[in-house]
């Protein structure tokens, strides 16, 4: 039989991440029969209703979320190490601390939905089906990389994930275009276009909002507000930091982006909203990155170490989910440790596989400039003798 237990919200300590809840479980672990109550402050809405604070989810999904976040963090930590060992070159933007956004989104979406984001994309690439090996190999510039080693950190794609984009803000109209294609083809699915607090002021973002609303595209715009656009705090870049309201004629939702279940709930809500024909919606995920903007940024010249530490200690998405899983007996401490260990092993193995992969063949220098078979007859190298004939 099931038991119910309600705790007054007032009794929740201000810093506590976990909220009281009602837990009912049936025999099947795959059925969405776990009911978790989110903290009242999880959502703030603008011109729409907030989603329900009651999350209906399955044990399997919860465990998968945990596993995904742990693995993602391991992967990013491994990337950090590889960059410091000079095996990764150029740009490398890690999502450590922001795992809840990519993971919470994935559980609420299907393979028919599309996602596009900017350069902080490794986590999304993983959630959208890429193997860890292919991501790490791409960072290392190897043949086994998901883009054949030709793109690097910022240019990773899967069939329903459109990158990985290097030009701040450009991905937002692209995302509106992907949503446009979905509507054009009659697909009942949505496209989620992510951008940061820094990108939110780009003119083309508003151009995308306008067309999405005018043409009622199944587009959800997601501002991943991690409080800093590179080294510039949100309130130093934006006259209006209520990013979820910046859509003006597009309703919006502000979400606790450090809580994977809140993210899941908001994304499910947004998908339903947009696919049911209500047009676009704006989500603002309040999140935080522990690392700097990129590997070239220590991340401490424009914010305090105390702030970073505070977020790690009190708002960590993995710790938060962990506490929930334990408190509601979803899995045991030992099972959790096993997952942690397995993730470490998986990532370590992927690192070895990625390192073992060779650099791309020199012939790949000349390929994929144009579609195979439809290209130009020659390509010039650095000097007249360095000529490639197709």
């Amino acid at each position, binding site marked *: 039989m099931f038991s119910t237990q309600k705790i007054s919200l007032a009794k929740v300590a201000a810093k506590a991440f976990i909220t009281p809840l009602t837990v009912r479980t049936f025999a099947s672990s795959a059925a969405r029969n776990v009911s978790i109550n989110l903290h009242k402050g999880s959502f703030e809405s603008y011109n729409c209703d907030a989603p329900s604070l009651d999350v209906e989810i399955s044990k399997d999904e919860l465990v998968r979320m945990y596993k995904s976040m742990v693995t993602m963090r391991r992967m990013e930590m491994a990337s950090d190490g590889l960059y410091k060992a000079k095996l990764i070159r150029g740009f490398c933007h890690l999502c450590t601390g922001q795992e809840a956004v990519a993971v919470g989104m994935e559980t609420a979406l299907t393979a028919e939905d599309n996602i596009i984001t900017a350069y902080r994309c490794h986590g999304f690439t993983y959630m959208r089906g890429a193997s860890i090996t292919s991501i790490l190999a791409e960072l290392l510039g190897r043949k086994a990389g998901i883009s054949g080693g030709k793109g690097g950190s910022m240019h990773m794609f899967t069939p329903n994930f459109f990158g990985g984009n290097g030009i701040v803000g450009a991905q*937002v*109209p692209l995302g509106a275009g992907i949503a446009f294609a979905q509507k054009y083809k009659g697909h009942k699915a949505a496209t989620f276009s992510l951008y940061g607090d820094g990108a939110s002021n780009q003119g083309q973002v508003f151009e995308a909002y306008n*067309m999405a609303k005018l043409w009622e595209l199944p587009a959800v715009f997601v501002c991943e507000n991690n409080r800093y656009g590179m080294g510039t705090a949100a309130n130093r870049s934006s006259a209006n930091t209520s990013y979820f309201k910046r859509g003006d004629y597009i309703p919006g939702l502000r979400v606790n982006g450090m809580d994977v279940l809140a993210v899941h709930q908001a994304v499910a809500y947004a998908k339903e909203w947009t696919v049911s024909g209500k047009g676009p919606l704006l989500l603002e995920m309040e999140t935080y990155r522990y690392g700097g903007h990129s590997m070239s940024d220590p991340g401490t010249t424009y914010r305090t170490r105390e702030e970073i530490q505070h977020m790690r200690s009190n708002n960590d998405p993995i710790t938060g989910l962990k506490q929930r899983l334990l408190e509601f007996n979803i899995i045991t401490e030992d099972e959790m440790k096993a997952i942690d260990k397995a993730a470490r092993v998986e990532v370590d193995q992927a690192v070895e596989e990625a390192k073992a992969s060779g650099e791309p063949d020199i012939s790949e220098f000349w390929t994929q400039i144009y579609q195979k078979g439809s290209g130009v007859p020659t390509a010039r190298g650095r000097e007249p003798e360095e000529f490639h004939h197709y």
Partner: protein
Amino acid sequence: MSPMLKKAITVSIPSVRQALARSNPVLANALLAKRTYNSKGGVEMTVRDALNSALEEEMTADEKVYLLGEEVGQYNGAYKVSKGLLDKFGPKRVIDTPITESGFCGLAVGSAFAGLKPVCEFMTWNFAMQAIDQIVNSAAKTHYMSGGNVNCPITFRGPNGAAAGVAAQHSQCFAAWYGSVPGLKVVSPWNSEDAKGLLKAAIRDPNPVVVLENELMYGISFPMSEAALSKDFVIEIGKAKIEKEGTDVTIVAHSRSVGFALEAAMLLEKEGICSAEVINLRSIRPLDTETIIKSVKKTNRLVTVEGGWPQYGVGSEICAQIMESEAFDHLDAPVVRVTGADVPTPYAQNLEAFAFPDTDVIARVVKRTLNKKIGA
């Protein structure tokens, strides 16, 4: 056309032709067109109608092809190129956009990533500067950066280069800029056959293609061959056309300049000065260097003509490639470029006349190059 006018055109009186060109550039162009060496055919079509046919045929053939841009729908096109398409295909496939080039170009590129075949119209290519990031960084480079995982079968089109009296911000030629980008194909049609065949090829091409039309050519009629009227007529991108064969000098041009080059060639022939071979580039990228080299080996002299600015332009590229090729040994004189002047286009008509090359300028330069001999 009155006999006197006809005579005025055939006679080598620069002042008469200049006067006509200045008073009525459209008519001057029309007369030019009638005297060109086009494929034989009984039907005549304006460049505008040829483009319209191309769009209609490709939209009929493939559901994934759609057109978007400012005023393409209810207005029937700022220059009427898309006339009737909204009525025929409906608002799902012919889309009037807000005046937001950066946004709607990005949207079009994104839709191409997701499997559609957009035709993205810029009212003029000048306005595409607001969208150039999406054209170059999103459309051109993504197939390569993704290791072949992402495709972008998009066509960008619109009028490029000089119009009449529209001054500096509305008269720039972008052939050289887009022509330098790996990942893009760039075409520049001159006459109606070019317009139809190249636009159809561009739409069918799975790569991003830039189509540089010319507003002053839209209203000009040209004969269309039987083949060109077919709904499967495409012109191979990357192949130039020899519009007129000759033996003494090669003139290479693209877009509107082809007409002036042909007129100059005929003038010089009539005056008994030389027999010029005129090549219509048709494609800026890939550039058909092979055809140019072959011609130079035959004629030993080369003059390039374009409407764009001289520095770092199409002519500059041709010069460099010819110099680096076997054609260098066949040159009896240095290659010369005829280009737009290195100034922002002025408004006053007498000043504007100095901004872009015409028949007389080309003829003068060709004569000069014929008088040069290496070592002399």
